[in-house]
């Protein structure tokens, strides 16, 4: 198990490899469809995303005794941000993207070029992931986009993920897809009537 702790420097990020199991501690910012589209349109983020981690997540956040508390925080499907992600990595200097389901070629290339990684969280593990959020430190664009789509600044501890796209051009998704396609092929040809 690798511990990835803030600050998230390029050096730390480049030392990660596809397949590494990682626990993140520090700040992550949530951002999903609305935020990605909006940044892509050229708006400046309300908080600097330089060396930051963005999390594809629409959390369930409740106010308890005047404080924000996250009650569920699983990842959402990342491919929806594929058209925007590479540009945002380049322009704003993101160091990691957390989500589920992997991302495509453009993002893989941007990760390699600009020193970023894609970290796969366990889909559906809403409760485990909520437990590793220690504090909601801030929220941005809440009025504009509503709760699930806002940028939530979360302080996390030991947030579990797997590196599936690294900063050296490798993608676990691509590799497993190719291997399973080959295996499927041989299974298909051996199926007898």
């Amino acid at each position, binding site marked *: 198990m690798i511990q990835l702790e803030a600050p998230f420097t390029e050096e730390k990020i480049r030392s990660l490899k596809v*397949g590494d*199991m990682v626990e993140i501690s520090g700040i992550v910012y949530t951002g999903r469809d609305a935020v990605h589209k909006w940044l892509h349109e050229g708006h400046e983020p309300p908080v600097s995303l330089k060396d930051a981690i963005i999390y594809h997540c*629409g*959390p*369930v956040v409740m106010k308890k005794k005047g404080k924000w508390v996250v*009650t*569920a*925080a*699983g990842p959402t*499907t990342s491919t929806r941000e594929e058209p925007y992600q590479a540009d945002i990595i380049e322009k704003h200097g993101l160091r990691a993207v957390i989500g*589920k*389901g*992997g991302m495509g070629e453009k993002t893989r290339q941007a990760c390699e070029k600009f020193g970023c990684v894609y970290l*796969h969280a*366990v*889909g*559906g*593990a*809403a*409760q*485990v992931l909520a*437990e590793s959020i220690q504090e909601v430190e801030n929220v941005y664009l809440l009025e504009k986009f509503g709760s699930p789509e806002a940028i939530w600044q979360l302080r996390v501890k030991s947030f*579990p993920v*797997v590196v*599936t796209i690294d900063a050296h051009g490798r993608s*676990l*998704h691509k590799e*497993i*897809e190719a*291997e*399973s*396609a080959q*295996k*499927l092929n041989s*299974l*298909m040809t051996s*199926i*007898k*009537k």
Partner: protein
Amino acid sequence: MAMNSALQKKVLESFIEIIRKTSVDLPGDVVDAIQSGRKQEPEDSRGKYAMCIIEKNIDLARVKSQPLCQDTGSILFFVHYPRKLDGEVLGKLIRKAVVQATKKGYLRQNSVDSLTGKNNGTNVGPGTPTLHLEPWSKEFFDIRLILKGGGCENVGAQYSLPDSRIGAGRDLAGVKKCLLDAVQQAQGKGCGPGVLGVTIGGDRATGYLHTKEQFLRKMNDKNKIPALAQLETEVLAEANQLGIGPMGFGGKTTLMGVKIGALNRVPASFFVSVSYMCWAYRRQGAKVSIKGDIQKWLY
């Protein structure tokens, strides 16, 4: 028979409890399958890591009485009720239970108007929840509920045989090709390891409907039709050779189960319908007395 208000109140409470339990507590047979999946994955592997997190999540959700996954999915009710009761009133009660369970946070606000994109926050609207209500001669209710997430619903597939892309003809060998292809296509999406619900035959609508009914079966049951029982075993073993693994991280546990049913078809059509259920396989059921009390959990 009209349902008096005391009975309505009881039945409503029972429905809310069934929804709560379905959303926060996976049935034992599914938990067992997840455990054996975890044991199969090698030490220090990514597959094991994912399975351990999944198990921890299952325990936490139960203890905290909070939804297991934040996508509480499509709400699919399968209900048998005593013939002498009023089905229309029952339908209204179920919708009411859904609204209240949503208010209590057991269900996410998950029902969106397809034209306007609006969400009225109640989970009730055209087509949601889905109710299958059947009167029967018995003196109690059999109430079953499945919550099926959107991510895994998106990777369902329907094949019309013959299918030249995958070389599948109109026989069980062709069906098997469809199923292996569907699993390979679904990889990385739909939060595996998963379970396939399959219908051979029917039309496009009944085929998919029947795939959902397959999910009412227990993981460890055996198909009563020998040819299908064999096909289930074979597809499970072969799909697990694909190496996709939990979450698509690679590994042995790609599927935890395969459940296949067959319906008659018209001679011109031969559909194979496949629904994919994620590891968050939320299914519960209860026997409810005619007085409205939960007497026994069914899974």
